[in-house]
């Protein structure tokens, strides 16, 4: 019968309409900004720089190796490397960026900077409410604006941050063990000449 298909279709629409009163599955609209969907852990938006401890300048993990600047596909990161070194969170002297700018109007949130950074210094943020009236000033983020604490990182990406923390702790432990070994070797070396001076050759 002509029109049968249309009637069937209309019945389907009616079912959906009425269903939206009872089934949550059919009522998908969320009243943003009053209501929000839960934050998805893997979400990414723009990069930020992680710092350890309290002071963002002191604890900044970035050692200004310029890898991310080179790898960023649209070239929206610009870094100036420092001339001097400062102590990082673990007390090792490191270079640091005197200027670290990201032009977020160019950034395409691809996460490649995060992937290539060997120091876990740059990570992806999830904050998306960033609209601004200033086309250039507010979309060029400097070092200060980009710095966020490790606690914040743990809050937005708990699983990933835990893995990074564990790995960093391990590396630090290794480094400490190594430097301890090196110190011991040094002490031994310092002791050795005294021995050889006395005419005793150490057995290998």
């Amino acid at each position, binding site marked *: 019968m002509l029109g049968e298909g249309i009637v069937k279709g209309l019945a389907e629409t009616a079912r959906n309409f009425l269903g939206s009163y009872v089934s949550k599955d059919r009522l998908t609209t969320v009243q943003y900004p009053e209501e929000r969907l839960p934050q998805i852990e893997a979400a990414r938006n723009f990069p930020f720089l992680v710092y350890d401890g309290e002071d963002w300048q002191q604890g900044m993990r970035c050692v200004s190796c310029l890898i991310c*600047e080179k790898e960023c596909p649209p*070239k*929206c*990161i*610009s870094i100036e490397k420092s001339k001097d070194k400062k102590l990082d969170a673990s007390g090792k002297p490191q270079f640091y960026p005197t200027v670290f*700018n*990201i*032009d977020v109007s*160019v950034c395409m949130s691809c996460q490649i900077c995060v992937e290539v950074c060997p120091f876990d210094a740059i990570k992806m943020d999830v904050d998306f409410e960033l609209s601004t009236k200033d086309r*250039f000033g507010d*979309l*060029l983020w400097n070092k200060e604006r980009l710095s966020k604490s490790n606690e914040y990182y743990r809050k937005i990406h708990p699983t990933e941050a835990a893995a990074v923390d564990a790995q960093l702790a391990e590396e630090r432990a290794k480094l400490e063990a190594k430097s301890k070994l090196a110190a011991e070797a040094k002490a031994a070396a310092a002791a050795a000449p005294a021995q050889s001076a006395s005419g005793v050759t150490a057995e290998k």
Partner: protein
Amino acid sequence: MNLETIKSEIEANVPGCRLEIVPNNSPSGQHSLLIDHEHALFVASFLRDAAHLRFDYCSNVTGIDWPGKEITEKVKIKKILDGVEQEVEEIQKTQSAGHLEAVYHLYSMEKKHGPVILRMRTEDRAVRIHLPSLTPIWRSAEFQEREIFDLYGIVFDGHPDLRRILMWDGFEDHPMRRDYVEPDDYEYEPTPHDAVLQKAKQHLNETGGR
């Protein structure tokens, strides 16, 4: 299907054609067949129509630019020096003309095999840039050859509608060529560095800071 056998079959069926296998050393092992201009259409129609080959589907057509290189070679020449003939080494510099290349990837929808890769080369990059169009054999080459004409500047003889496709009609150059120079279309960027910074500086110098 072995490219060697295909080559000898073509040679048997298209008298006078000059074919050459271009080897490919990468792990993909996709070697290709360089064909000459005069017999290109015959080779193509043989590949399409031979009952056991039936390459009826021309998937991908594209251009490549190989600019000329400066070749330095040491040559030994005989010269008369102080009345005695001597052999002297001299360094000669020659500029090769370079060429443009069109590549066709052929598959068979009927026999479900492939790819066979055809290549054609122009003689240089400036004047003798004509190649025969394979659009009469595979219609799928039509728009892709137009694109090559647009971006590389190869002129396909026998193409039904050879116009620019992606760039606008008044555009002059061929942007995919390796030596293409972009126009000075400066745009302010807050984070210039490397090439972008150079470009910005050059622009600002030329225009007096505007």
